[in-house]
């Protein structure tokens, strides 16, 4: 009975041992263990002599076929191992694989999103307006005098007598103030159009983010506070912000806002034409005429507005030296953002 038990044990364990062999060494060990000269099968063959005359040929046959089975299993596994080893031999963790390649964004769109979300995190809402605007919303309501040169066909695209492609995002201010009662606090991102010839610093179609905040006591000091917060968050804590008097028809007092040059840290370099400052946006207190044009009582409400060119900000932030890249959409450009 001991013979039979041993036979079964070999029959059960051999396939497992063989199939679990991971390399030739292990497989050779398994081979020696089962069908080697001193292996388990050989030793059982030797024990055949202890069997009865009738049983001996039956078990002899069985042992032979088990040996063949094991041999073929070993051969199969050997082939598999050899194949695997061939693969393993050229294992190279530095080999390239086909992976997902970040296809990139257009930095104008990305920057516009970044600016917008920075202001929404400060509690600003988001408003949009049409790009085909009335001359009234784009100029008249914003206090542009009747003869203002910007209204000219030279500078502004018209689609008919009194409809044009908005030259700034400021008409969104008018639309919102006419529709909602103050207080309002919003940014308006979008495309703008100016009849400029395409060159390294002009695009006929570009992007702006407009800001507007109207309440009972919004002051120029708040305009400074909010925009300084923006420049610090967007360009980094070390950046300095400067407000200087300027002129826009729709704000009074008006300011031009500069940041210390991001290239030379205010020392003066070619990027800032030696001035140490870079102009980034225009702002001011909403002109009382504009409030009146929107049916808002200028004695009760006041506030500020600002507007920035998205491509310009992106150029300063990322060091892009030609605005035409933004509409060229070269993959090598997009992949960087």
């Amino acid at each position, binding site marked *: 009975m001991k013979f039979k038990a041993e036979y079964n044990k070999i029959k059960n364990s051999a396939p497992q041992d063989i199939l679990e062999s991971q390399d030739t060494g292990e497989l050779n060990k398994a081979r020696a263990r089962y069908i080697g000269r001193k292996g388990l099968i050989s030793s059982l063959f030797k024990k055949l002599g202890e069997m009865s005359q009738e049983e001996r040929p039956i078990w002899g046959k069985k042992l032979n076929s088990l040996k063949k089975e094991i041999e073929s299993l070993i051969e199969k596994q050997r082939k598999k191992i050899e194949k695997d080893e061939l693969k393993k031999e050229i294992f190279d963790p530095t080999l390239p694989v086909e992976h997902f390649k970040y296809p990139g964004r257009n930095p104008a769109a990305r920057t516009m999103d970044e600016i917008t979300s920075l202001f929404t995190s400060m509690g600003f809402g988001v408003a949009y307006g049409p*790009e085909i605007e009335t001359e009234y919303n784009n100029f008249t309501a914003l206090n542009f005098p009747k003869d203002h040169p910007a209204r000219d066909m030279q500078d502004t695209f018209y689609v008919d007598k009194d409809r044009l492609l908005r030259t700034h995002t400021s008409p969104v201010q008018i639309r919102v103030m006419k529709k909602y009662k103050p207080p309002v*606090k919003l940014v308006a991102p979008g495309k703008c159009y100016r009849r400029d010839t395409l060159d390294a610093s002009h695009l006929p179609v570009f992007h702006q983010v407009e800001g507007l905040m109207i309440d009972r006591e919004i002051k120029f*000091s708040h305009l400074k506070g909010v925009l300084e917060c923006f420049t610090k968050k967007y360009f980094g804590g070390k950046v300095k912000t400067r407000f200087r008097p300027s002129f826009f028809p729709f704000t009074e*007092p008006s300011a031009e806002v500069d940041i210390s040059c991001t290239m030379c840290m205010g020392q003066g370099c070619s990027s800032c034409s030696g001035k140490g400052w870079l102009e980034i946006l225009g702002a001011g207190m909403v002109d009382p005429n504009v409030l009146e044009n929107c049916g808002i009582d200028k004695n009760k409400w006041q506030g500020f507005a600002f507007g920035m060119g998205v491509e310009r900000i992106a150029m300063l932030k990322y060091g892009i030296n030609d605005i035409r890249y933004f509409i060229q*959409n070269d993959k090598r450009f997009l992949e960087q953002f």
Partner: protein
Amino acid sequence: MRVPIDWLKEYIKVEKSAAKIAEDLTMLGLEVESITEGKTGPVLEIELTPNRGDCASIIGVARELSVKYKYEMKYPHTKVSSSEDKMGNGYQLEIENNKCCPFYSVKLIEYVNVAKSSRWLRKRLEDCGIRPLNNAVDVCNYIMVETGQPLHAFDAEKIKGNKISVRKADGGEELLFLDKQKRKLNKDDIVIADGEGPLALAGVMGGLDSAVSENTEKVLLESAFFNPKNISRTQKRMGLNTEASYRFSRNVDPKWVLPSLYRAANMLKQECQGKPIPGHMNSGRVPQRKKKVSITADKVNGILGTHLSTREIKKYLNLLEFDISSEEDSKITLQVPSHRSDVEREIDLIEEVARVYGYDKVESSLPETTIESELLNTSDNFSRTEEILRACGYSESVTNTLIDKNLLKNMGLLDEVTPVEISNPINVGMNILRPGLLFGLLEVARYNINQKQKSIKFYERGPVFFMRNGEYKEHKQIAFVSQGGDFYQAKKTAISMLQGIKQEYSFKYHKKSALFDKKRSAVIEIGGVKAGELGCLKEMVVSEAGLSGKKFTGCFIYLETVKPEKTSDIKFRKWSQFPSIFRDISLVAPIGLTHFDIYDTIKKAGGGCLKEVRMYDMFIDDKIGRGKKSMTFELEFNSPEKTLHSQEVDRRIGKIIEKLEKEKGISLRKK
């Protein structure tokens, strides 16, 4: 405007360095663009805002500095005669239109010796960016730069007759200008004319024929006040930006019109040994500015967020030459000086106070305010569609919204869509607003293929425009294109996008398509409404886009049809605790049936426990018969209440097959 610092010193004491002066002027609102070294020392290049015509002169800039440094201004003094004396017999002056020209004056200088100017004068003019010509012209320019009042010198002997009129030009008149160009004049232009015709385009440029030359012996000097709006229109239309028009269009100081005339005459006496005839001639009246504006400290501080006292405010405004005309309680009423035509309201005065006080001194603070509620960013999920497209390997592009109408014409699209045309395009390549995004995307593809870039996949989100029933329509689209691939790959991307933003979509056969190959494309519906199209682009469209012979797939979706995801719509549902049973069925169906026909039949016959129906294999083979196709579906059955028995599932499958056979003529495939 270029301002030599040396010249400023004639009117104020300046001890600061050029860099410091530049910074201080910039902080006062006169932005200094650059400092260069001129023949007389450092020269500032100032970029004037359109409201500050008062600073278009050395005196104007000096006045700003006198405010900043609290130095007293030394205005040049010139004696002006009370007009109309001897000279009155010489000419007959006539202003035809007082609105265009409220005041016109001339002064005659005889025995002039036209030659080169003195060196100091030439150097100063050169530093101001003005080319010296001859002493007569140089003197006029010098006084213009000094006081801001443009002057003109005529050769008096070239004036025919003795009548000088200031009038609108006739429609057909022409003038040969100083720059030797002949230009047509418009009815809106103001001209100075003699008996025969125009001598000069008022406020912009003189004529060549009446110009001072080496042979000139008598100079007639002109000083006038023209309507800034007329001058600005004329200079714009003619594209003639001259030193004179720059100043007239920004409003000159009426106070200086006559003194400038006399200053120039005095200078001509020195420079060209001329003999001015005493007195002058004039017509019209110098505009008087007697504007008064009131201001209170409360309002100043309420707008600026400062804590200025009435005393300080008065001090700042006095420095700017605003004189107090009355004071009651806290209200101060001030007389606006004649050079500040831009100051009309209290808010304008507040800006002046802020300027002198210093924008940098206004302390920043954050507003105490409510959070915007009405326009609060309702998270539209469009940015997620973009994230998904990028994850599918598409690069974001932003293309020009202005495109070429011919492109649409050549693609045969003008019957399909009426584009919005630009009345005044810069060039024909940008004469319409794009009616779709695919045109720009194909151009980006073309560019990148030329640049030997690989994996040509681009998307864009943005507005598109067209006309409908005579109205302008503006819609938001998202679109993508990919080189190569087939309809199904485009569909895969489109579904990834739509499913990512939880839309109910379906795909329908195209009846007709302008852009897509009808047999390889589909209409996308969202919630049963047409939302866009996708598939293989027509060969003609691709080749007109300059991509002949290349295969492109694409897709566009109108974002207005996309329902914004409301977080309030999301409700948690527990999934089934019991195992699903999966069964595969292979069917033989008529070739004309769509997947949806079969899917829908299975779904409807499957009952509540049929969770999913997934087709994973389809083929056509002679063995299954002509006009037939084989489709294999995996069906998943599940109940949230119990473990299903295999017999129940078998019964259900029996019903499904029965229905498929009866309604659609579909049978089980024999193995």
